[in-house]
């Protein structure tokens, strides 16, 4: 919820929206990479649905995209031998692009993607900044998890 509060309050205070990392996608990637189970999938969906409450006009749209990002992260984590911060940052980079373009495509139809050309630089910038911030967020989350006794590393099946 703090991540969402950050995402809604800060853009209203500063003009450069692209400079604000997509914390929800970063959290979804962390869940997919490190927590393999039914509950993390539901948490990812819940985070997306919470985002829907504060973004856009189609409830379910962000829930879909965040769950998809979680699922892709989970699949990468299940198949790769190493899931370090670089892998996480790479997934975050593509996850932010997919989430933004997917939200436009699902919300307004595939035709709207053609109009989104001017938005691509800002989406790419946001994806890059999110990817740069992601390792820091992962380490903060890992530290927090250790504090409360949760597993901080990938739980392989």
């Amino acid at each position, binding site marked *: 919820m703090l991540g*969402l509060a950050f995402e809604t309050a800060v853009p*209203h205070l500063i003009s450069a929206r692209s400079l604000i990392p997509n914390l929800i996608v970063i959290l979804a990637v962390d869940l997919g990479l490190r927590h393999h189970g039914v509950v993390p*999938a539901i948490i990812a969906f819940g985070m997306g649905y*919470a985002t829907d409450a504060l973004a856009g*006009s189609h409830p379910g749209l962000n829930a879909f995209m965040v769950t998809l990002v979680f699922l892709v992260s989970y699949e990468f984590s299940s198949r790769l031998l190493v899931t370090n911060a670089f892998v996480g940052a790479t997934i975050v980079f593509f996850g932010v692009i997919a989430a933004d373009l997917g939200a436009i495509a699902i919300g307004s139809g595939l035709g709207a993607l053609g109009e989104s050309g001017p938005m691509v630089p800002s989406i790419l910038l946001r994806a890059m900044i999110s990817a740069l911030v992601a390792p820091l967020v992962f380490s903060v989350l890992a530290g927090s998890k250790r504090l409360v006794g949760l597993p901080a590393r990938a739980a392989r099946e």
Partner: protein
Amino acid sequence: MRGTFLWRNRVLLTSGALLILSLHLISTGVHPGDFAARPTSIFLEIIRPIDAGFKHLSAGASGIVNDYLALVHVREENVHLRIELARVKSDRARLAELETENRHLSELLELRDVLGLNAVAANVIGSDATGVSHTLILASGESNGLRPGMAVLSNQGVVGKIIAVSPHAARVLLIDDHNSALDGFDQRSRARGIVAGLVDDGLILKYTDRSEDIRAGDTIVTSGLDGIFPRGLLVGTIKYVHREGPGLFLNVSIAPAVEFRGLEQVLIVTQPPPHIDDQVKG
């Protein structure tokens, strides 16, 4: 249990079910009062005080922090004086902020009097969580009489409409969002069209016949036919008209009258606009 197909693929199956649920929500939509709309209201309520706190902090804290940092390492005899100066500066900044807010609210009150409709003012405390859509979060909700579908205005013109409410917060879909549309017309030529938002920033006038006399610089106002916005409210000014290319309709771009990013207070029309016949007579 652990070796079964269901257990081995539990994450995939759960995620798949949740994806299908999401698609179902997108395709059917969530109506106010639905069970699926309750989380929206709860999340808005939780976010409201945090966003309001962010706004309050940003308004007052920067001056205090700067003054405080300037006080570090100064001589002992200057400390009290500088603290006092910082307090006065902070008070002055707060007063300037209150003065600005007062001016905005006075302008909104004037607008309400001109409209002759019941309306309430609300503070803007946040914006869209993703940035892909164009929405705002208001610090007023159902307890202030706000309901989904109500028109939101500023002293500059039309802002948008309310799409979700909680007891103490509401969300506004701005008219420049790509999912927004309202009925408008050219004030000079009376040519009608649908004012719609773009994925990127900006507005366009859709479904305006090629034979219509529309020029750059013309003013677009609401028609009142959509049953949401009262007739005659300023939407924007035409930037350019492209008559070239195929198609039945004109390609018209509009510059919005409202500077959406700088909005601090807005006016919400709590009473449905009068029937179009009454508006035209009035």
